[in-house]
């Protein structure tokens, strides 16, 4: 049976877009969908919801019509009550229009992400606030302000024109990238939620690749997502299994192959972007039969290339992990120490540092680093894993 979580994540955005296009009232649509999601939850307890998208739209539409009839009878008289005949193509267009609006370049990236999580993914404010590490009140203020900005600038839910497409598309891709990362590497640690988020980011990325053919960045990002998502079956069982310990036979190998084809295709389309490099790195991991067989030298070089595009402490952290795999402990240590200030609140940083100290026989320092990682980690299964490692150090 399809979980309630994945029903909502995969249907909410389209339902929102379609309803908003018909009724032009965001508040009303939000309320109606909240009502419909509650109904969906009740129903999912006992039976499967077939064609959840149409079901959600239908229930929410009826709710809106009822509300209008009750509170604005004059307006109701003039409303077209017949169900519009919508094709899948129109659903897609409405969904794209919604994403482009949420990711308008005039909105800060943080608020673009918040709006996407709310309108495209259907998360409630509390969950979004938690994911973005802000208070509920701050998030609410930001969303209110963003809605006001959209209204003041008459940003409607239409698709961008050809001449504005490149800048608009880049913004959308970046947010989908962040959304996928939040799903895969996010701090919540709720596997069910995370997987639905990743799947939906991939679905939307596919939609974009289909609509805007021949866009190198989109294809490269889709490849990157697929390379990583292919590991999901081996990664998330009851708790998260690290890449080095995953049973690689459980990986989705057809998905890896598809990702590889997409990456090759995207490389022919123009100058490689940072998504290309990241996809190539993920691809090298996917091609290795086991962790030790990974082409670490190649990965180290690719990180150099990635870092030549933009400075990223997390990329340096990952590069240092690759350096440790080939025994370049000194280089790895230099790199790690150079990013200490940037990543002082980032658990994976201290995990890498702990690994380095352990393998260079500085057990006291290793214990200290792993303890810091443990206190910083918000992920239950990661905490458990660290606890085990700490016990082994004693």
């Amino acid at each position, binding site marked *: 049976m399809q979980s309630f979580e994945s029903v909502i994540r995969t249907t909410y955005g389209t339902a929102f877009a379609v309803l908003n296009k018909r009724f032009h009232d965001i508040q009303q649509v939000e309320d109606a969908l909240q009502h419909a999601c509650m109904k969906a939850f009740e129903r999912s307890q006992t039976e499967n919801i077939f064609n959840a998208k149409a079901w959600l739209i239908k229930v929410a539409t009826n709710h809106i019509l009822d509300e209008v009839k009750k509170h604005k009878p004059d307006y109701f008289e003039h409303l077209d009550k017949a169900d519009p005949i919508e094709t899948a193509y129109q659903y897609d267009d409405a969904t794209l229009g919604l994403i482009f609006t949420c990711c*308008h*370049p*005039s909105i800060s990236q943080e608020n673009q992400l918040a709006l996407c999580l709310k309108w495209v993914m259907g998360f409630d404010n509390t969950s979004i606030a938690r994911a973005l590490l802000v208070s509920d009140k701050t998030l609410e203020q930001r969303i209110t302000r963003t809605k006001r900005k959209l209204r*003041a*600038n*008459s940003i409607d839910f239409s698709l961008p024109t050809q001449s*504005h497409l490149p800048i*608009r598309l880049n913004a959308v891709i970046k947010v989908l990238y962040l959304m996928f990362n939040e799903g895969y590497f996010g701090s919540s640690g709720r596997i069910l939620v995370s997987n639905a988020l990743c799947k939906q980011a991939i679905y939307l990325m596919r939609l974009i690749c289909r609509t805007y053919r021949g866009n190198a960045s989109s294809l490269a990002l889709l490849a990157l997502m697929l390379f990583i998502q292919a590991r999901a079956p081996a990664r998330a069982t009851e708790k998260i299994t690290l890449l080095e310990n995953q049973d690689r036979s459980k990986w989705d190998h057809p998905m890896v192959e598809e990702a590889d084809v997409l990456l090759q295709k995207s490389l022919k389309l123009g100058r490689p972007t940072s998504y290309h490099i990241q996809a190539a790195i993920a691809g090298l991991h996917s091609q290795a039969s086991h962790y030790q067989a990974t082409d670490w030298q190649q990965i180290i070089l690719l990180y150099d290339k990635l870092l030549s595009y933009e400075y990223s402490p997390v990329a340096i952290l990952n590069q240092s992990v690759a350096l440790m795999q080939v025994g370049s402990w000194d280089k790895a240590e230099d790199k790690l120490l150079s990013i200490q200030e940037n990543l002082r609140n980032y658990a994976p940083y201290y995990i890498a540092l702990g690994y380095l100290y352990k393998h260079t026989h500085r057990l006291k320092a290793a214990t200290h680093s792993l303890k810091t990682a443990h206190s910083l980690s918000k992920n239950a299964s990661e905490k458990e894993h660290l606890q085990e490692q700490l016990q082994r150090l004693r």
Partner: protein
Amino acid sequence: MQYLCLIFESEALAAQRDEQAEAALIEEYGKFTDDIEATGNHIGGEALMPSETATTVRVRNGETLTTDGPFAETKEQLGGYYLIEAATLDEAISIAAKIPSAKDGCVEVRPVMKFE
């Protein structure tokens, strides 16, 4: 929809421009203005005298108070504006990006409020 493009640039930087650079900039502005007039986006616009010529006016308890200088001391100062007509914010942004001072200063784009 009408948008006001407020042009901010560093007056300190502007003071360093030599005659030749100044002439080139004026020519660039002239061309930009011609362009948006031709496309029908232009409604109005002016360059302003430097911020040191500003007087800031407040009325408190019925009394008019004036301060010598601009409202806020910032790194970049308001140097001029364009009032433009654009179909979407996208269009307004791409027009603002062509304002010559966007290259070393910045342009704030604000929708004009309509009273119905």
